């Protein structure tokens, strides 16, 4: 298709109509600034040729110029296979499409609306949109040849365009027959399947699917009736079981009823007999009771009488015993009193023992006192000795004249200071040491020791002094020695002062010898310590007493001893023998204790015997009292028992008569009892049990009967539903449907197999298309960008996805190329396809490029333009750009200024 003219109105930025013509032979450059409407004009062309006039929705509304209600209109004059056409299309308002053929000056209408659009689609090999605007994948040839802004990217081609390409490459002879056959196949296929290969749904669903939809309900119904049938079979089995069970329980019930009847008959025979036996027994018992009571009376009377007699005898015995025991008691009492007196007398103690005891005590006291006296006397003596020692020490101390601690300390300090001063002085003095080799005399004029001195040969002479030492040495002359002048004098003064102080301090001690004074001090300390010790010892000896009190105590002891000796004159000769006295005492004590013990034993014995006698007497008296009481009661009882007025003989006779009667009754009773036993014992318990069993059997039977009855009801309901018949009909219906489904599905699957197999074969054929296109596009790329990028890799849908440079090990993804290189790859592919669809197809087609080389440098752009020039011979180009100057090199290009169109 070649474009001659385009008219647009009410379309985006073109509220008013604009129109422009293209040169069919030249490269047309539609240029203008950004926003001038270049792309809008291209879109108007696309929308006009490819979209349905009925398209609506937001995307179509967006075609109106802003702020208006204008309906977009597009008029396209184009040429195809030597004929010129005009397509007029109105969107949104007065929707319509009109196709006319140019015949001379006239336009001959060819088709309207859908028909018109269909014809155009045939030319462009495009497809009708499903809804809204036509998507690029359905643009047909326009998809390949027309490249709106930002649609340079190629993601593949399919459908009729691909078929066209394949055809052109000679891969498949798409003759009419094949197309027609394929269309027939497709048509039949689409009766069952969608184009995506899924079964059609909804009202378009194929027969087998619709029928399949009928199955679930039927299958469910079949399952229900099968279940019912199974229920019926099970219920029949159960019914038989119920029936058998009922029969069993019925049999058991009948048995139990028979048993009960039999037992009831036995009971009817048994009970009167039981009553009779009862009566006889009662009578017999009554007689026996009476006889027993009478016998009891008789026995009681005899017993009472016997008792009375015994009681009398016993009473007499008791009286005698009481008398005897009283006598015995008296005797014992007298003896006891005697013994008690003896004991009392012994309790007082034995004189001899006590006097010996007392003697011993006194002797011990006396000896102890003497000991104490000796001890006190010794202490007193020690006290006096201590006193003397203390006195001596004090005298020694006072004669010692020793300094005390403080004085001694002062002396120490002064002595030390003196030594220090001396030393310092020595240090401050001048010293001259002479060792004469000959004898001579020397006079010390200044120094120490002053005066004339005779020097001996080989001797040592020391002279010291300060501040000068002057020596007049015989045979030598005057020697003057000088040194530091000041300190010695001071030191001497201080030394003299200290010496004086020492002298003053020690004056009262009679010596200035500090060492001596220290000795004295030490001695004084020792004496003081000794004195202190003796004083303490003395105090201990006194024990808190004074010497006078101690002496007084001694005197008292002496007095007491004297007094005691007067009581015991033998002690004057010597102290008493305490051991001997003790021994005597022990002997006497032992004798006394033995006597006393014997008396005590006797006392106890008599006491016990007396107690026993009294106890026995008391017991006899109690017994006597009881027996008297019993005897009284016995007499009363006897009177009561004889109150019946009968004599003993009469009473006995009566008892015998009663016994005989009782025996008679008893025999009759036994007879009746044996009769009962012959009847088999009391059937009532057995009857009771049998009745319970009957009750149980009745309940069981009734339960089974009810169950069977209910079950029959259930069965009847089930039978009424004739489940087998229902399931048979359902199975048959389902079988029929499945057969129909099978047949139709087989047809559907067969068609799908045909289509899929054809499609697979086509794909395999298509795979052979990508190669040649890749080769062409790669050559174009080399011309544009050089050989560096190598060859272009295309998918089966002819979409470029990588380049394969010779230097690289593998393919390089387009994403890894620069924007410009990527752009050039796409352009190369599009131009290769355009070449195929125009030059190889032997027809001229419109190729549109909208701002597709924005990233391409001028150098490469120039090469692209060269290629476009070459292709101009077989394709009409329309290039949209805002840089018209870049395309100036094109020879004879037709430049169309969009701005100009508006004027």
């Amino acid at each position: 298709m070649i474009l001659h003219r385009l008219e647009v109105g009410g379309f985006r930025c073109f509220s008013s109509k604009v129109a422009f013509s293209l040169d069919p032979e030249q490269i047309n450059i539609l240029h203008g600034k950004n926003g001038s409407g270049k792309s809008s004009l291209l879109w108007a062309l696309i929308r006009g040729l490819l979209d349905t006039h009925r398209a609506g929705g937001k995307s179509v509304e967006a075609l109106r110029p802003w702020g208006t209600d204008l309906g977009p209109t597009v008029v396209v004059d184009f040429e195809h296979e030597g004929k010129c056409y005009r397509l007029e299309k109105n969107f949104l308002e007065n929707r319509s499409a009109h196709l006319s053929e140019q015949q001379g000056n006239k336009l001959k209408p060819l088709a309207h609306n859908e028909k018109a659009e269909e014809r155009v689609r045939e030319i462009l090999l495009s497809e009708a949109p499903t809804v809204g605007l036509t998507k690029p994948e359905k643009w047909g040839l326009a998809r390949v040849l027309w490249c709106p802004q930002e649609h340079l990217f190629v993601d593949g081609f399919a459908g009729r365009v691909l078929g066209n390409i394949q055809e052109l490459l000679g891969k498949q002879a798409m003759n009419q027959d094949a197309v027609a056959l394929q269309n027939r196949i497709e048509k039949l296929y689409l009766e069952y399947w969608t184009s995506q290969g899924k079964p059609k749904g909804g009202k378009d669903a194929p027969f087998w699917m619709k029928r399949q939809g009928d199955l679930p309900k039927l299958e469910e119904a079949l399952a229900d009736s099968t279940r019912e049938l199974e229920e019926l079979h099970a219920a029949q089995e159960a019914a038989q079981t119920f029936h058998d069970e009922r029969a069993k329980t019925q049999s058991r019930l009948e048995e139990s009823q028979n048993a009960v009847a039999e037992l009831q008959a036995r009971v009817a025979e048994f009970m009167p007999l039981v009553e009779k036996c009862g009566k006889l027994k009662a009578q017999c018992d009554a007689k026996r009771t009476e006889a027993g009571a009478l016998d009891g009376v008789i026995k009681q009377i005899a017993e009472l009488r016997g008792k009375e007699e015994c009681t009398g005898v016993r009473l007499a015995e008791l009286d005698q015993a009481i008398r005897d025991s009283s006598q015995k008691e008296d005797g014992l009492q007298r003896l006891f009193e005697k013994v008690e007196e003896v004991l009392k007398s012994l309790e007082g103690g034995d004189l001899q023992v006590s006097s010996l005891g007392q003697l011993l005590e006194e002797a011990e006291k006396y000896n102890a006192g003497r000991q104490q006296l000796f001890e006190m006397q010794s202490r007193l003596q020690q006290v006096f000795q201590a006193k003397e020692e203390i006195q001596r020490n004090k005298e020694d101390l006072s004669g010692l004249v020793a300094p005390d601690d403080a004085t001694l300390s002062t002396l120490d300090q002064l002595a030390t200071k003196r030594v220090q001063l001396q030393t310092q002085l020595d240090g401050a003095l001048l010293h001259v040491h002479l060792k004469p080799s000959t004898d001579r005399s020397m006079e010390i004029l200044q120094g120490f020791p002053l005066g004339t001195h005779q020097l001996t040969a080989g001797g040592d002479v020391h002279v010291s002094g300060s501040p000068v030492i002057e020596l007049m040495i015989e045979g030598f002359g005057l020697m003057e020695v000088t040194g530091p002048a000041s300190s010695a004098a001071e030191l001497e003064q201080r030394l003299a002062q200290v010496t004086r102080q020492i002298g003053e301090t020690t004056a009262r001690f009679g010596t200035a010898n500090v060492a001596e004074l220290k000795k004295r001090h030490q001695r004084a300390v020792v004496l003081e310590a000794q004195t202190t010790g003796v004083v303490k010892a003395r105090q201990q000896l006194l024990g808190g007493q004074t010497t006078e009190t101690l002496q007084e105590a001694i005197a008292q002891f002496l007095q007491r001893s004297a007094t005691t000796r007067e009581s015991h004159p033998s002690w004057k000769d010597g102290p008493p023998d305490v051991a001997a006295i003790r021994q005597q005492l022990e002997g006497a004590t032992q004798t006394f204790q033995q006597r006393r013990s014997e008396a005590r034993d006797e006392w106890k014995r008599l006491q016990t015997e007396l107690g026993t006698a009294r106890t026995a007497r008391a017991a006899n008296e109690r017994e006597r009292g009881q027996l008297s009481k019993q005897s009284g009661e016995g007499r009363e009882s006897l009177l009561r028992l004889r109150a019946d007025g009968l004599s003993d003989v009469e009473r006995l006779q009566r008892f015998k008569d009663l016994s005989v009667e009782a025996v008679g009754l008893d025999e009759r009773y036994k007879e009746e009892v044996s009769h009962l036993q012959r009847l088999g014992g009391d059937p009532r318990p057995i009857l009771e049990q049998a009745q319970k069993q009957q009750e149980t059997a009745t309940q069981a039977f009734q339960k089974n009967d009810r169950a069977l009855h209910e079950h029959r009801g259930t069965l009847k309901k089930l039978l009424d539903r004739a489940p087998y018949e229902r399931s048979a009909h359902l199975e048959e219906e389902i079988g029929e449907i499945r057969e129909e489904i099978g047949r139709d599905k087989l047809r559907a699957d067969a068609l799908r197999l045909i289509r899929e197999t054809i499609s697979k074969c086509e794909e395999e054929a298509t795979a052979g298309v990508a190669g040649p296109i890749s080769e062409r596009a790669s050559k174009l790329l080399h011309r544009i960008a050089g050989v560096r990028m190598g060859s272009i890799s295309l998918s089966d849908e002819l979409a470029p996805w990588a380049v394969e440079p010779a230097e690289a090990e593998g393919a390089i993804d387009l994403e890894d190329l620069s924007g410009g290189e990527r752009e050039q790859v796409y352009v190369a592919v599009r131009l290769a396809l355009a070449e195929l669809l125009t030059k190889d197809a032997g027809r001229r087609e419109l190729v549109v490029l909208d701002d597709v080389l924005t990233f391409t440098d001028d150098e490469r752009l120039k090469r692209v333009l060269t290629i476009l020039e070459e292709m101009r011979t077989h394709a009409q180009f329309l290039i949209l750009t805002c840089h018209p100057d870049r395309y100036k090199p094109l020879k004879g290009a037709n430049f169309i200024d969009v701005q100009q169109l508006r004027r």
Partner: protein
Amino acid sequence: MRFVHTADWQLGMKAAHVGKAAERVRAARLEAIRNIQQLVREENADFVLIAGDTFEDHGVSRKLVGEVGDLLAGFDCGVYLIPGNHDHWTLGGVWDQARERWSKRVHVLTEAKAVEVKGGWLYPCPLTQRWSDQDPTEWIPQESGDGIRIGLAHGSLRSPLWEGQQNHPIATDAAQRSGLDYLALGDWHSVKEVPGRGGAVRVAYCGTPEPTNFGEPDSGYVLLVDIETHGSRPRLEKRKVSQLDWWNLQAEIHEAGDLGRLIKTIKQRPNPSGTLVRVRLSGMLFATEAELVEELLELVSKRFLYGQVDDSALIPNPKDDSWIHNLPEGSIRDAAKRIKGIAHDDKDPVARRALLQLYDLANGETE
């Protein structure tokens, strides 16, 4: 005595395997009873023995039970029947209903107790269970007397060739063991006479009076039995009573024209409206005859009461590629070759159908 021995009426049976003809098949079974009635009338039979499985199941409709009762009441003689394994005697089953409503001339024998019949004694062996491993004829006592002794039982004659457990197995010498003159059996759907000592047939299956499926040989009959006296050899005569014809046809296609001849044969079959036909094709399908398969399908399904064609064993002739070469060159032809390969190698029914479809489309025939 003369009597008619029949069994396995299977009334009310489902027939899903014959599609829309199911109802007709069921109705035919009732028609067969009328034919038996006619036979009884014509041959002056003393009584009719039905050896079990009168009904297919206890769950059949009451209407059917009533209908059968009316039919049986229409016999000119007494009818003696026993419950079989399908309609075994059980509380709440069909026989409860039958007893309530049927004529007293129809004797439903539910107890293993000898019954006096015209000319002798009948020893019925009613089944009380659907399945059992017990021989139902075991109870029949060996008694002396002049009357002809007839056993009536339902079960499977014991056979060492049988795999697994037989249902209600019957000893092959049951008749001899019990001193029976004849043992009338039911359960097997084909007529089967079991020769005994001296070649006398005293045990026989009468088969079903109306076939129940394709492949039931020797069915659609009753046995007319004559026995002179006790101890004499019974005379058996097979008499057809069935309404419908179940035609099972196997055809092997070797060469072009076979299919056409088959179709011709089928067209010539009499009484197609009373015939159910099943055609099993095997062999090679020639491309030129592909449409004949459709014609055959059409023929059997439209002309006959019921028709089924099984062409799964029919494979496209591997040497017959002529039509494929007539297809447009390219992917369509390639696809046809591939599909043919699948149809032949895998015997895929979808591929076979696809091939036929493609052939039809290629020849301008669309469905």
